[in-house]
């Protein structure tokens, strides 16, 4: 009976649509450029260059002219140029997904990504026009990573493994279930992201971010250990679980270094110093990777768990699943 249940679950979650290598590679490219954009954004904040270009949507009065890239302008305008490119990639990704992907929810996911990048651009503009208010700047930081996660998931959902693999369903009787744990991991990471952004943008003290780091460490360690003990035979779960654990350890170390360089040693610094810039930018970048990896783990765990959800594909698009 469990075998039948597993087989049924596997069939329900198999996508049975052809893999499109070009579309998948484009999604991976879009995710990579988005990661670069997050680094560029972190460089703007770390170098205190957020208002070095005082106008928006123009830069020094022009929509297309590249200003002299010195001082803070180098960071701010580069960030704007990469952001424009990501916006352009998102339009292509949304249109391509809408036209080529038979999964209705994927069409919506592509449009969601486009909506998020537009909202993100507007938030970025508002930070400039309202002189970096902590709430808007933090929302800009949080939405950046949300958009990154969505594009990473589009890359996963268009990948060969997702498209062609028959999911091996593994039952999980322990409570809370691994699906619950992965969702809890995303929640605590998201709270951590907001607390970190609020601290970085002078809206909150450092200690809520540091206290929540302990909660994040416990929840993520619990999730990854459960995933590795129960799903170790499934590559699609084991890999993100190991990656998540490694990234979490790296992130804790980077957080400690960022705290030392910026809070403990750098609070009287007369300008942003290289150690504080490098450590905080790396902390933001690894944080984005950690959140995206946890999101990937969550969808992979869902896919390999007996959860009563299924991917809906219009019957006319459904093709036989390869054995």
């Amino acid at each position, binding site marked *: 009976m469990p075998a039948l249940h597993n087989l049924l679950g596997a069939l329900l979650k198999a996508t049975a649509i052809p893999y499109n290598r070009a579309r998948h590679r484009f999604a991976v490219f879009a995710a990579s450029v988005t990661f670069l954009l997050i680094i560029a954004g972190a460089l703007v904040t770390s*170098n*205190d*260059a*957020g*208002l*070095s*270009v*005082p106008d928006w949507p123009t830069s*020094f009065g022009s929509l297309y002219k590249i*200003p*002299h890239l*010195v*001082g*803070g*302008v*180098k960071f*701010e305008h580069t960030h704007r140029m990469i952001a424009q490119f990501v916006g352009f990639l998102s339009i292509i990704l949304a249109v391509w997904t809408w036209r080529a992907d038979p999964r209705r929810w994927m069409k919506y996911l592509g449009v969601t990504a486009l909506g998020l990048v537009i909202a993100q651009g507007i938030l970025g503009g508002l930070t400039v026009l309202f*002189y970096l208010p902590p709430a808007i700047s933090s929302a800009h930081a949080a939405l950046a990573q949300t958009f990154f996660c969505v594009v990473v998931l589009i890359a996963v959902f268009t990948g060969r493994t997702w498209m062609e693999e028959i999911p091996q369903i593994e039952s999980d009787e322990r409570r809370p279930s691994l699906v619950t744990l992965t969702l809890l991991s995303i929640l605590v990471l998201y709270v951590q992201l907001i607390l970190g952004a609020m601290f970085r943008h002078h809206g909150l003290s450092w200690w809520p971010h540091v206290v929540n780091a302990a909660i994040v460490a416990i929840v993520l360690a619990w999730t990854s250990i459960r995933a590795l003990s129960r799903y170790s035979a499934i590559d699609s779960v084991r890999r993100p679980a190991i990656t998540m654990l490694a990234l979490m350890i790296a992130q804790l170390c980077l957080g400690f270094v960022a705290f030392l360089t910026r809070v403990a040693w750098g609070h*009287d*610094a*007369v*300008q*942003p110093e290289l150690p504080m810039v490098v450590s905080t930018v790396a902390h933001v970048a690894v944080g984005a990777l950690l959140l995206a990896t946890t999101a990937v783990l969550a969808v992979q765990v869902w896919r390999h768990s007996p959860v009563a959800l299924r991917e809906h594909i219009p019957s006319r698009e459904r093709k036989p699943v390869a054995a």
Partner: protein
Amino acid sequence: MNKKIWAAMCVLCLLGVLAGCSKKENTNEEQGTSPSSEVKPAPASAPIDPATAASVSGTVTFAGAAPKGQKIDMSQDAACKGNNMAETIVANDGKLANVFVYVKEGLGDRTFDVPKDATTIDQKGCRYHPHVLAVMTGQNIEIRNDDETTHNIHPTPKDNREWNESQPPKAAPIEKSFAREEIMLPVKCNQHPWMKMYVNVVKTPFFAVTGADGKYEIKGLPPGDYTLAFVQEKLGEQTQKVTLAAKDSKTVDQGFKAE
């Protein structure tokens, strides 16, 4: 709920947001940073008799070893030439520079004419000259850029309106003023993050900023009991009471200690 009702609600929400934004902007304008020509000067009250006017002067000192000045790295902009040291605490032989000294209490409801001459902030060598400026509310400030690079001038006040404007090399001076009193109002350049200065805005003309020798002098005060405040950007504020009789010329020194 049908689509028309949804559409009407969306339009109403949008109008509400726009109204909120425009209201905020009006509020900002009321706080004002426009040149003093747009600020209605309050009528001056009973004039001070020059024959009885008193003065107060003194030296501000710093006890203990002065912190070593931090050298600023300006390599990210080749147009920023010369040496630049942080001016957070500038103490020479125990004499503390850049301390804002003003009459905090004792002048009652007196009002004073705003000087017609503008005071100047100069951006030269990718640093502000002076590092600490004092002006009256509504007094014009002329901001110049003598560097071969673009700066942006960005005050981050608590009580006045915030603004952020760029100024290319050889551009015409920018004229601004602050409508409300504010002590140690930070001004920075986001293109060159080490560039910081402070503007002090008060309603009276009785203020001074200590020079490199730590000295200050405030002239033309009517006889009376006053509280003098000494404010340093990092070390904070200290006060002293002083009583001035007609034609008095008193010395009031003040000492700061390392934190």
